[in-house]
């Protein structure tokens, strides 16, 4: 095993592991954060990062062969779509009447601030 390969392996593995850890944290956020908007922060950003990390790990490991390209594609696609999905979900939440959590301090979008969370 050459040094180059060694470095590549370590790098790829750390991307890989980092991605997973971030993802896990994101999911923890999903569990812990107070309202749907905050949870979206966790899943979108950290989730994407986690996914991207793992995909990058793959690219590091295999290079730009078909697998690497696919991995990049997956990551790029997530980056393209996840924000929109988050946008759609948060917008839907707000317009559906899901209020912000009680810790919230401002809502310049609408008047649904502090609404009862239980509403579905």
């Amino acid at each position, binding site marked *: 095993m050459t040094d180059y390969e060694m470095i590549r392996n370590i790098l790829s593995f750390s991307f890989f592991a980092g991605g997973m850890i971030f993802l896990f944290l994101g999911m923890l956020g999903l569990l812990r954060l107070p309202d749907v908007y905050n949870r979206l922060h966790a899943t979108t950003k950290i989730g994407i990062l986690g996914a991207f990390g793992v995909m990058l790990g793959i690219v590091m490991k295999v290079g730009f062969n078909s697998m690497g390209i696919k991995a990049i594609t997956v990551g790029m696609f997530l980056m*393209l779509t996840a924000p929109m999905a988050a946008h759609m979900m948060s917008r839907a939440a707000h317009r559906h009447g899901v209020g912000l959590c009680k810790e919230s301090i401002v809502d310049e979008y609408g008047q649904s601030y502090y609404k009862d969370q239980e509403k579905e």
Partner: protein
Amino acid sequence: MTTLIAKTVTKACVPIAILFSISLLLAGHNNPGGGFIGGVMFASAISLVYVVFGLDYIMSICNCKWEKFFALGLIISASTGFGAILFGHNFLRSTFMELHIPLIGEIELVSAGIFDIGVYFVVFGSILYIFKSTGDDE
């Protein structure tokens, strides 16, 4: 109406999804994919347009007769079978040939691939037909 953000992203995503569906269709014989998967992928791309732009808008652009697509698909798939009979073989007897094309290299042409294309058409045609008739109601 959905937002311009959604619409713009959709405009970007749809061709990608369709291309991906075609890639799944063509690669299906050697990689994960195939007619069904490709077809659903295609249908998903179009339904993304339906969802984001609304059925009315799409209808104003083009009123696709999806039933013709799946009928066509059925004809393609069945014809693969009948083709074999014309060549004195059994229905759906497959064959393949290796073509050597300059610049591109070896290409395997598989008759089952044509069958798969038929499947592709049937799948997206029928799914979109279902979506359209259901969404169109009232």
